[in-house]
């Protein structure tokens, strides 16, 4: 045993010989009991109660969240997969066929769109200037007036030639509904 340990052991032995005064304990407890807060208003009990309620609330919420997370959000599951039984060659043919059908559909839609712009019939006319703007004098001696808006739109779509001037013979193309699709110069043609 080291010297320090010996001193410590002797100190503890010495302390064990001593007893704290019992009268102090009695006095202290009597005073403490007199001052003790009534159980109904015991702050400790209230704190404990509130803490336990809060803990339970957090626990229930946690359990609820966990349950909700575990519950699936779907009821029917559809599994889509490539038919594994098909051979690679057949699979390629199937894909090619699907692509072809898609292309055919797209092409049909494109043709349909083009037909809208394709001329249904054409008429010859002479370009004249009127007070209201441009006009087209047809072979039937009818005057077709072109609004400035239509002229701009045709020019923007490059369906009206830039170099056209008064007196030029032009060919007017109409669509199915009789709307002007384009105006082109027709120098060799006359009514």
């Amino acid at each position, binding site marked *: 045993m080291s*010297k*320090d340990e*010996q*001193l*410590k052991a*002797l*100190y*503890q*032995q*010495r*302390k064990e*010989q*001593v*007893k*704290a*005064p019992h*009268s*102090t*304990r009695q*006095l*202290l*407890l009597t*005073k*403490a*009991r007199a*001052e*003790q*807060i009534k159980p109904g208003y*015991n*702050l*400790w*009990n209230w*704190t*404990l109660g509130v*803490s*336990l309620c809060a*803990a339970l609330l957090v626990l229930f919420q946690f359990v609820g969240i966990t349950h909700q997370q575990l519950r699936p959000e779907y009821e029917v599951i559809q599994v889509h997969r490539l038919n594994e039984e098909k051979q690679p060659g057949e699979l390629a043919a199937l894909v090619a066929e699907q692509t072809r059908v898609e292309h055919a559909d797209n092409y049909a839609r494109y043709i349909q769109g083009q037909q809208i712009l394709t001329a249904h019939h054409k008429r010859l006319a002479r370009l004249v200037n009127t007070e209201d703007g441009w006009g087209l004098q047809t072979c039937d001696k009818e005057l077709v007036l072109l609004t400035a808006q239509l002229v701009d739109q045709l020019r923007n779509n490059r369906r009206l030639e830039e170099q056209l001037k008064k007196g030029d013979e032009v060919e007017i193309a109409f669509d199915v509904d009789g709307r002007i699709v384009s105006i082109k110069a027709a120098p060799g043609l006359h009514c």
Partner: protein
Amino acid sequence: MTLSIAIKSLLHIELSNEELMSRYVLSGDASLLAKLYDNCARDLYHFLLTLSEPELAADIAQKSWLRVMEKRHMYHSNGQFKAWLFTLARNLLMDEYRRTKRYPLLEACEVRDQGSQNKVDGTLLKAFSQALETLPFYQREAFMLYQEGFGVQDIALITGENQETIKSRLRYAKQQLRQQLGECCE
């Protein structure tokens, strides 16, 4: 802190002095104070008894515990309860010495008989007790606080001294005790 105390209470796990005091501060429950008294009263009384006469030691011990009751709201839950208790007691003792104009450091060190309660059986224990009582007051105080489990920093805080002074007092106290025990029992 509160929740851990509540759980320990529910599971009947023994609470530390700090936990008991924290609960006592909140509730004022006399049984908690009784537990604290049972845990620390002997240590405190022995400390005071070694630094003063039995009557004064009992009086200061009682005042210290009453002060624990009165000043419980000033207790910091992060502090060591025993250090707080010993600080209260030490301050009361020093106040008493100042009031009665007795300065322990200047007193002649003499061997005192503690009466029948302190009669020891073994020669070594008797020699130790006598050697302890012949130590200068502040060395005795530092040595006892050290034996009560306080570190140098704690002792410095309890006594209001710097740590180097405490180290010095401890060194001299141990040296003198060893010397006296050596002379006695070799």
